[in-house]
């Protein structure tokens, strides 16, 4: 676990010491703030519905953007060679990087506190959807990060990693929607709906935290972290 800790600490320091990190947070807050207050004014209802409605689409960009650097950059610099010749297991590297990105995500979500605070101040009463919504948002963000991390592990270039990550994320997010799944045979489209990120995130947004959704998110994250580890190990094939 020493390797995990060292990698985690280094990546955390990297996120919070680079201006890129803060730019990503700032951009995220500007977007979300815009949609939140816009929603408030349009519907005249003090809730977080419009916030959680656009969140996935902002996360689609946020996740891959946060993760794109993690492995691709190491490949480009060549520093992967030192990292992987340290007595650390490949999964420790992947997990350390993922955990750092997840903490950064948590920090970013925390920065949105003025929005629910405003909603409550304006009279929103039911805190249930807040918590489950944030809970779901965290899992969704982590899913996109794990996908982005995988993308970062298969290409050498950050920008390409971002695009690949965004592509995979988008597909898994919308594949349950009729406009995608109707092209596939019925048994497959049923499966695609159940396996889509959108389906499970919407379920959580309703204010119910179902264990099945949580298990789904954990499986998806685990799956992509596993693929990322495999992709690091693949140099040995």
């Amino acid at each position: 676990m020493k390797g995990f800790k060292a990698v985690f600490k280094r990546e955390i320091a990297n996120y919070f010491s680079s201006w890129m990190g803060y730019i990503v947070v700032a951009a995220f807050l500007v977007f979300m703030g815009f949609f939140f207050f816009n929603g408030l004014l349009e519907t005249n209802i003090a809730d977080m519905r419009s916030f959680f409605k656009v969140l996935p689409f902002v996360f689609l960009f946020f996740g891959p953007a946060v993760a794109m650097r993690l492995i691709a950059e190491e490949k480009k610099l060549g520093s992967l060679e030192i990292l992987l010749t340290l007595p650390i297991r490949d999964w420790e590297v992947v997990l350390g990087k993922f955990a750092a990105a997840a903490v950064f995500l948590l920090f970013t979500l925390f920065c949105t506190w003025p929005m629910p605070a405003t909603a409550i101040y304006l009279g929103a009463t039911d805190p249930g959807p807040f918590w489950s919504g944030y809970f779901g948002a965290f899992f969704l963000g982590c899913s996109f990060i794990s996908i982005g991390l995988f993308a970062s592990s298969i290409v050498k270039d950050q920008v390409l990693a971002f695009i690949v990550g965004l592509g995979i994320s988008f597909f898994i997010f919308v594949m349950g929607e009729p406009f995608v799944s109707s092209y596939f045979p019925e048994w497959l489209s049923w499966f695609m709906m159940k396996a889509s990120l959108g389906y499970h995130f919407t379920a959580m947004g309703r204010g119910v935290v179902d264990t099945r959704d949580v298990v789904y998110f954990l499986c998806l994250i685990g799956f992509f972290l596993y693929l990322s580890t495999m992709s690091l190990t693949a140099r040995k094939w």
Partner: protein
Amino acid sequence: MIEVKGLTKRYRSLYAIDDVSFNVDKGEIIGFLGPNGAGKTTTMKILTCYLPPTSGTALIDGHDIMKESLEVRRLIGYLPESTPLYPEMSAISYLKFIAAARGIPKDELKKRLDFAIEATGLRKVLYKEVSELSKGYRQRLCLAQALVHDPPILILDEPTTGLDPLQRIEIRELIREIGKTKTVILSTHILPEAEATCDRLVIINLGRIVGDGTPDHLIRKYGKKACFRMLMKADRQMVESAFEHESGVKEYRFEGKSEDGYHIFEVTPELSGREGGELLFRLARENGWTLAELSYKKTTLEDVFRILTEPEAEERKEVA
């Protein structure tokens, strides 16, 4: 300490290294020599468990690089060729990161860091960012990184590239110093450096080992016999026919004409040493050649290197 057995690495149809075997004893400093693309870096990457071999294996202090990779990596300090460091980190935080990842216990940390910093002369630039460091300091930082856990084995891929002559001497002395207690494999293509630093040389060409031994041994084994250089004014054909008919001359070669009009020959007489020289002088006198220079040419490591790595010497094996 290091036992390399039949190591082969194939990229698609090309053999990067082909059946490479050699041993390194404890405390030895081995110079790994070869032209660019000979397979030095590939061999080092395999020994450090970054790449797997296609076939063959190596034992590092008894541990198999494939089966006990973690243990092997613990024993090795590795300096890759391109000094890949994180540009945004300061030198000290980078070293601390490596130390943490290597699991150096807290109570030893300061001692280990101090050792690595002093040995590589990094004290002045500790708090500078890597991106601000000169090539020489980056090289030192990378070396410090390889030393920080006090490994019994060091694998250094071209440790002196990009350094100025003074730094080069410093690093060379450092390696000599470290090599007293550690086993070192270093690659280079600077021959005098290898000769000065290493106990033994392993020469690799087109993926195969073509020479292995101390510099003296290699020169004796592969070098030409005592050879003389003659500078003279004489008709080229006559000289050549004289050499042809003289049984004491084993080999000769016309090297060309000097700027001021002397013919240059390289002659290897049957007899070595002074007797060979006497013979050549006699030949010149009897034939009336104007001899301007007659010098004994010692075979250098460079000659050996050239002989062993001549491109036409061996074609690289390809898979059909």
